[in-house]
């Protein structure tokens, strides 16, 4: 039977008064992401051969590849960070960064940039690499 004068919580309550908080002051203090954490897809345009395997296997249809125009497009807001594209990429052009995706603000959507939209234009034969990045992705 429960004792009405139960003091089981008291030692812990006293400990809590002198211990550090379990939470973080988030925007000011950010935890370093764990090594294996799945965060954001990074793309290396130099090594990609536009085989389109990542686009075909992406369960969320977040990746669009155009072999003729040599464009590689990812919609980060569609991406579910499942790591499938990284696993299937034969040229190891895709990597999973452990940094989480940054949140978007309405101010990011300026100049027709879509939030989370990241577009890469690969080298046409003997042409320089250009990229246009969406903001905040």
């Amino acid at each position: 039977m429960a004792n009405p004068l139960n003091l089981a919580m008291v030692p812990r309550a006293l400990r809590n008064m002198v211990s550090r908080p379990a939470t973080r002051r988030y925007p000011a203090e950010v935890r370093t992401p764990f090594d294996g954490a799945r965060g954001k897809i990074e793309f290396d345009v130099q090594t990609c051969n536009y085989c389109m395997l990542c686009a075909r296997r992406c369960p969320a249809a977040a990746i669009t590849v155009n072999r003729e125009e040599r464009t590689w497009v990812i919609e980060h807001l569609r991406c579910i960070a499942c790591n499938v594209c990284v696993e299937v990429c034969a040229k190891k052009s895709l990597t999973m960064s452990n940094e989480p995706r940054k949140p978007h603000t309405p101010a990011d959507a300026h100049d027709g940039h879509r939030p989370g939209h990241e577009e890469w234009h690969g080298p046409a034969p003997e042409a320089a690499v250009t990229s246009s990045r969406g903001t905040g992705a």
Partner: protein
Amino acid sequence: MKRTIIPFGPQHPVLPEPLVLDLILDDEKVIDAVPTIGYIHRGLEMMVERVEYTEMGFVVERICGICSFMHGMGYCVSLESIMNVEVPERAKWLRLIWAEISRVQSHLLWLGLGADAFGFENLFMHCWRMREEVLDIFEKTTGGRIIHSVNRIGGVKRDVSDSELVAILARLQELGKTFEETSRIFASDPSIAHRLGGIGVLSKEDAYETAAVGPMARASGIRTDTRLYGANLYDQIEFEPVVETAGDCLARAVVRMREIPQSIDIVRQAIEKMPKGEGLPLENKPRGNPVGETFTRLEQPRGEVLYYIKANGTKYLERFRARTPTFANIPAMIKLVKGCELADVPNIILTIDPCISCTER
């Protein structure tokens, strides 16, 4: 006598889950409860008809955020049995370890929510602080806190090194010691005993008749646990299901509390028994498309879950069905709510550990 109908949910302060229940009251006494299922129906089961079976695993994981690992595992185990894929030994053990860790986090989450519901906010924060440590283990090993995406048909995608497994076990055992103190508070605090003790008593016969599953049935004295059937390597684990006989809200809380140290012990046994070494095979990729049908049963934190899959040889499955534990526990919940006081309804509903995302899919 004039009767009042009070809608309990979809939005209710005590429950983050959108449970829809109409309570028919006679004064303060509940005389009937009418559940409505489908408020957050997303049609995930029907998605198999247009999502390839290899990709469907990621959808199945998203049936519910708390049992996401077990949902993914159940789907993969079902398809492995249809396609006769032999899963490597180490992958099976890793699945078992992750499944038990997810049981720990689910029970900690529930204990926190339960404490919050009966007004013990301090205890709620303690439980969730411990849960956060478990989620850190998940993030380190699988890459995701809630959605793990490590299960694939034929195995798992990530390995956890032996030294890391030992560190995880040490961390879990330390957490178990901290939890002992919390469970003492749960067991001895007078306000908890007053709010939960003797409330919502489900007799053994009623639990059997309403086909209650999981902690709900075990708190009423039924020794039932899908893990006892020995599938997914549980035959190599020594454990005895936690059974309480009181059948009240407190007993259901105590069952979940006692299952946390038990799950930590199962993780210890698994780490001892699993094949050691680096670079062991983790995945046998299936060939072709599945043909056939299968039933799979798993013991989720909330009880027995049942998957039915029918495949017709194309890359799209013909039928996928998940019978989740909360769905199975709703008849028992309605039985308990009938005849109780209105003020006890939130506690009774919470102690079945309802997961409406699972139920309505």
